[in-house]
């Protein structure tokens, strides 16, 4: 069981196994304890400034202490939300200004900012051998082929598993 929890934390468990293990952790307090200890170990190994211990228990206790508000929302609350929203918008705008200025001042930074936006990669599979004709047709007219010389043609004849008999 302990080993499975460790594997789960490494993200190496299959989805269905992970689900049943998480269900088990929810029901079984020993397993939950192990889960928390493993996280604690991980936190200590990563050497942060503070190590949180028993965080979930503390959050639960604090939530139980929170009074339950049954009164309907008045104008005042709405007004407050609006103020918060406006100030949030203002600080976002400030970040925007800083980002914009850094772009103006240093072009080196812009790729880095842009790279962050592109962090999400769509799913992709290896190019099928059937599509080699497109690759070849593209290759012979790409400046990339010109600079790399014939070397880039190796792409089009690359040994792909699909092409293997």
């Amino acid at each position, binding site marked *: 069981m302990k080993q499975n929890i460790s594997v789960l934390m490494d993200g190496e468990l299959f989805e269905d196994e992970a689900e049943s293990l998480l269900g088990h952790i929810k029901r079984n307090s020993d397993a939950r304890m192990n889960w928390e200890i493993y996280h604690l170990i991980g936190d200590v190994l990563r050497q942060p400034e503070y190590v949180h211990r028993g965080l979930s228990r503390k959050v639960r206790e604090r939530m139980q202490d929170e009074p339950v508000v049954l009164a309907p929302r008045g104008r005042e609350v709405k007004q407050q939300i609006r103020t918060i929203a406006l100030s949030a918008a203002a600080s976002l705008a400030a970040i925007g200004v800083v980002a914009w200025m850094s772009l103006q001042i240093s072009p080196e930074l812009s790729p880095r900012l842009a790279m962050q936006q592109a962090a999400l990669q769509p799913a992709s599979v290896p190019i099928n051998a059937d599509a080699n004709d497109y690759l070849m047709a*593209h290759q012979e007219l790409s400046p990339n082929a010109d600079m790399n010389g014939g070397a880039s043609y190796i*792409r089009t004849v690359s040994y792909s598993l699909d092409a293997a008999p």
Partner: protein
Amino acid sequence: MMKFIVFFGLLFGMVAQADAEDMPASLDWLEVVTFAGRHTDYSGVFVYQYDNRVETSSIIHVNDANGEYEKLECLDGPKREIIRHDGEVWGYINHKMVQLGSHGQSSFPSLSAEQLSALRANYNARLLGVERVAGYNAQVILFQPRDHLRYSHKIWVDTDSGLLLKAAVLGNRNKVEEQYSFTQLQIGGKIDRSWVRESNMAGAYAKNPHETNNDIKPINSGWVADMLPSGFKKTLEIERKMHGKHAPVTQMVFSDGLSAISIFIEPDDGDEDDVEGLSTRGAVNLYHKVLGKSLITVVGEVPPHTVMRVLDSVRYNGK
């Protein structure tokens, strides 16, 4: 508050300046590399790394009165060989020499003034010092894009001959998408040319200009793509016959000087093999999609989201 922001911005800029102690690179390097790659005789062995794979190949490049000849041979896996001569490509595949392509022009035209300015606008070129590759001293040059729609290109150029010794295409967080690198290289001197004559005698190079002209013809198809990254200019628009296709295929090629994007348009014949989707080999991404009655394919040495974005913007604008 405003003052603080201004100061912060300046500081940010200065830190970045201090960081980049490397010299800005001149784009003349690209001209040098292209020229040297065409006019130098060399032979060597290089490795090609992509998608967690490594392949070793040998390459011989020679010039004679009839032009450039180049032989490329995979040293791993099944025997695969490619011979290039004056814009024609021949492949030795399944024990048979077949013509794989020809585009009538001996090589890609060298960079136009327009392309050079597009390059300057879209990439930040820097010299990163000198490193040793395959026993030669190489100047390292990094072309870093100013947006996230293209890859970074890092090249290692022989300081004496100007030959490209190593080239890497870097993606998000400097992940190596693909890389070529010579491990052994002989520049000039005695190079085996026997294959040039043999191939000529075998008729492998027998030119058939009529067929070539029929295969490819320039057209104005009326198709456009609205969402190409800035600096990508159309270098070619042709109609070509392609293996296994009944109808001619329209191909448009766009280039920003370092990378190219091809858009292929053909009637959708409902072939089940033509599934919609994204596929990748090294730095090349390919995206297939049926739009109306046409099958559109976008291929390029650009990130996946770029080929998808380009394809989704393809439309018929009328002639």
